[in-house]
């Protein structure tokens, strides 16, 4: 069961197999929680709330779920909608998307990856991510979950080119922010 396809697990769960849901849940829980936690700038209580609400909705909607692309894309879309509702409810304004030209920055990506792989660096990136406009931050986080640009476009309900643009600016802004920190 551990290796079963998402759709097989969904069908098994809706047919009455509790264990199937547990396998599905354990497959995506850390990714979804990581995405929400970073999206909410490390606010654990709000991340918990949205995370739980997302899974409750998923539990209720699974019987009517139809196989239309990746389950993870659908899961993140549900989470995103609940996140937006929560932000509206808590009246927290999202940052507008920045599209203006940014100054050129050194090619920071040439640095060895190993330097980035420790927790401290991840924390620095997370801090830098918080300074990005909401849309760019979200694209970057969804990309971290290995979703395709097409899937991210579906989640954000915008054209793929917009997503590509957001990712481009996200990486550029992150480079700028992180170069500032390194220097």
């Amino acid at each position: 069961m551990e290796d079963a396809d998402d759709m097989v697990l969904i069908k098994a769960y809706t047919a009455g197999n509790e264990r199937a849901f547990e396998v599905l849940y354990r497959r995506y829980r850390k990714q979804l929680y990581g995405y929400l936690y970073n999206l909410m700038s490390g606010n654990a209580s709000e991340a918990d709330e949205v995370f739980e609400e997302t899974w409750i909705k998923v539990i209720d909607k699974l019987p009517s779920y139809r196989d239309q692309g990746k389950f993870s894309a659908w899961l993140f879309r549900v989470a995103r909608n609940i996140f937006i509702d929560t932000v509206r409810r808590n009246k927290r304004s999202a940052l507008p998307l920045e599209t203006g030209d940014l100054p050129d920055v050194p090619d920071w990506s040439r640095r060895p990856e190993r330097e980035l792989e420790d927790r401290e660096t991840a924390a620095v990136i997370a801090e830098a991510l918080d300074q990005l406009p909401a849309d760019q931050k979200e694209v970057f986080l969804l990309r971290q979950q290995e979703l395709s640009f097409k899937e991210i476009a579906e989640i954000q309900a915008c054209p793929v080119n917009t997503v590509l643009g957001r990712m481009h600016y996200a990486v550029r802004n992150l480079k700028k922010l992180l170069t500032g920190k390194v220097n």
Partner: protein
Amino acid sequence: MKRVLPYDALSKREVPEAVDFRILARAAARCRERRIRRRVSIWGGIAAAVAVTALGSVFFQMGNTDRSAERRELLALGDFSRLDQNSYVMTLEVGSGSVDY
């Protein structure tokens, strides 16, 4: 576009145990509810089928009884021997002038 490699520390995060527990408990409860509902609907379906069959057989029997009674009446109506005889007697009487109109 260049692929941005995922950093586990960024992309994954341990979920609090209490949240895990609540979600899995909810999923299990919903699963049980669905199982019960399915069983109820299966037994309900069987009960309905039995009831329909029983009612059907009762009506069939009633229908059969009525139809046999009807048939007897119709057969009785089809017995024209007596009627013909009466008619013959009447015609005879009319023809012989024994009946005044």
